[in-house]
């Protein structure tokens, strides 16, 4: 019987399998950051263990770093200690680190692909749930906890059980003005936050094939928001074109050999999935969330839903609670919801293409009075490229703040936070209660919708301008 893309990558990494035991799966790339690694390094020290493969490990500072004044010491002493701990650990264990201020620094899921370290057919892990991003290259990539970080550091493997396979097929073409972010928000709303639990999602179909690598990364990034630890897209010419010439991509005869192997990484025609969902791209419109989990979303052109319209009592109760937290009334047109803050950035939408999309909308216009707009590039390299293209000037002229690279307001570990009751339109991935700051209210949107919203101060699609 045929195998899926995920099966092929999984099978190629099984070091050992035995009846009744988890497989030992080899890890090709381990990404590290300051938040989920300190206790893992402590564990190594206590057990007198080394990092088995520092040459397959790379670290960056992203989660709690400030996005202003980065050449000064971090003001928050607790954040500073955590960043300094990462630096000490990387020095002690011989791990390459891109610290704050370094030209290679950035969000862990932006720098891996940017360096060409993320390649088709690899296994990639990180102590961060958005590791699923790297699946856009046809890699098997998933988030792990700190105990597993320690396990990978010590053994370069993880005990794993083969997950179930789920296909999300997106047929047709995305209409003009509808982006990868709208697509993934619509998928999550359809299958729910638990829809992918226990599964790897493979995204397939014409609309997926037409996406750029940036768009594919946005889709795979939010797989975890649908409950799936990993999302994957089969590599193709778009993937190869993105990789060619990157610092760690294969070159010369290796490039050809690698491409030949990568072309085999597709689901066989006779392979079967445990679960299948089909979406018609041509029906989609710009999508936003109204609630406090990423499954609580709706087309921007509609209204805040009435909790009574949910048949399932659990969903109804969740909607009631969400509307109360979000300060929204059922039946309000989503276009009437006003925001205080617009955030463009994160591992979901902090890449160059995202910044271009936001800049295209806001060029020659102004951020509405009383609205603050933060543009936080996903990496220093993205920042440099955007500056080369003059995007920073477009944003500055509109009245937006141009920041340094990091996770920033996606999770509010640094000073970029919402105040209680403040509302944002955010290109990030989670609208959980308090995610962007205690009491903050988050609407997840695409970069284009974020920029249009900044101009009007209300949730707005570019076509509404």
């Amino acid at each position, binding site marked *: 019987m045929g195998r899926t893309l995920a099966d092929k990558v999984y099978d190629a990494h099984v070091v050992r399998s035995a009846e009744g035991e988890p497989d030992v799966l080899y890890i090709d790339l381990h990404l590290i950051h300051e938040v989920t690694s300190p206790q893992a390094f402590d564990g190594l020290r206590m*057990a007198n263990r080394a990092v088995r493969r520092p040459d397959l490990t790379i670290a960056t500072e992203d989660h709690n770093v400030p996005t202003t004044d980065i050449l000064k010491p971090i003001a928050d002493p607790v954040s500073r200690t955590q960043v300094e701990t990462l630096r000490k650990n990387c020095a002690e264990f011989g791990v390459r680190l891109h610290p704050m201020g370094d030209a290679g620094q950035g969000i862990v899921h932006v720098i891996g692909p940017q360096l060409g370290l993320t390649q088709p057919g690899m296994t990639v892990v990180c102590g961060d749930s958005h590791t699923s991003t790297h699946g856009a290259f046809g890699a098997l990539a998933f988030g792990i906890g700190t105990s597993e970080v320690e396990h990978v550091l010590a053994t370069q493997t993880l005990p794993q059980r083969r997950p179930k396979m789920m296909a999300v097929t997106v047929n047709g073409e995305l209409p003009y003005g509808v982006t990868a972010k709208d697509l993934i928000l619509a998928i999550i709303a359809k299958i729910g936050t638990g829809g992918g639990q226990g599964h790897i999602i493979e995204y397939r179909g014409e609309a997926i094939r037409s996406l750029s690598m940036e768009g594919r990364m946005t889709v795979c990034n939010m797989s975890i928001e649908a409950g799936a630890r990993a999302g994957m897209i089969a590599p193709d010419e778009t993937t190869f074109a993105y990789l060619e010439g990157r610092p760690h991509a294969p070159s010369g005869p290796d490039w050809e050999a690698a491409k030949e192997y990568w072309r085999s990484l597709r689901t066989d025609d006779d392979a079967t999935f445990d679960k299948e969902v089909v979406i018609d791209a041509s029906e989609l419109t710009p999508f936003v969330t109204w609630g406090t989990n990423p499954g609580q979303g709706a087309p921007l052109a509609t209204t805040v839903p009435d909790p009574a319209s949910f048949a399932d009592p*659990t969903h109804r109760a969740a909607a009631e609670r969400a509307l109360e937290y979000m300060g929204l009334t059922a039946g309000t047109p989503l276009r009437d919801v006003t925001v205080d803050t617009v955030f463009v950035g994160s591992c979901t939408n902090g890449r160059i293409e995202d910044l271009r999309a936001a800049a295209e909308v806001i060029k020659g216009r102004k951020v509405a009075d009383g609205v603050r707009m933060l543009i936080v590039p996903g990496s220093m390299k993205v920042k440099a490229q955007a500056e080369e293209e003059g995007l920073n000037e477009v944003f500055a002229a509109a009245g937006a703040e141009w920041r340094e690279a990091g996770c920033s307001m996606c999770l509010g570990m640094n000073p970029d936070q919402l105040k209680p009751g403040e509302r944002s339109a955010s290109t990030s991935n989670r609208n959980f209660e308090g995610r962007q700051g*205690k009491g903050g209210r988050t609407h997840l949107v695409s970069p284009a919708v974020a920029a249009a919203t900044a101009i009007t101060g209300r949730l707005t699609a570019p076509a509404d301008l």
Partner: protein
Amino acid sequence: MEAFTTHTGRAVPLRRSNVDTDQIIPAVWLKQVSRTGFEKGLFAAWREDPEFVLNRPEYQGASILVAGPDFGTGSSREHAVWALQQYGFRAVVSARFGDIFRNNATKMGLLPIQLPEDVVEGLQDKIAANPAKEFTIDLEARELRCDEGGVQTFEIDDYTRWRLLEGLDDIGLTLRHADAIGDYEAKRQPWLPVTA
């Protein structure tokens, strides 16, 4: 890891679905570099409400959390497991768990017990009617028993159960296969990237 064999204790009903790990432990608590002290951050935002279920006197000292479906979704932060354990929980019951949370829990010896949604709701009703009720979790038998009778059987794979019963550390188990790892490494494709 702390071994888990049997545990008897009182339970607390958390009647909310999609309790994500940002709620279990908000990000501001993740700046610590130690493994301890996270109990103070458990459900930090919700605990500011005196009516929140964990603040109610009848549930003080409860050690089994009985939560709505999709518990532990979102972020991979293992701090969520540490916070629950350090607060005093030994097990969490839910109809569905986030994959990464469930994995993290079994690495640390916090037992995730998955039961059908109507059964979980039934348990929550029972607990609310009598918060003093005691439950016994018997991992060997895969049973959750109520002091007044009533047994729920839950599923957990043999290997994970064995590891939890013995309190075994995964790294030690994997390192028994160090030779196999070395053999695999010798055969990896030459073009695969290195960070050095």
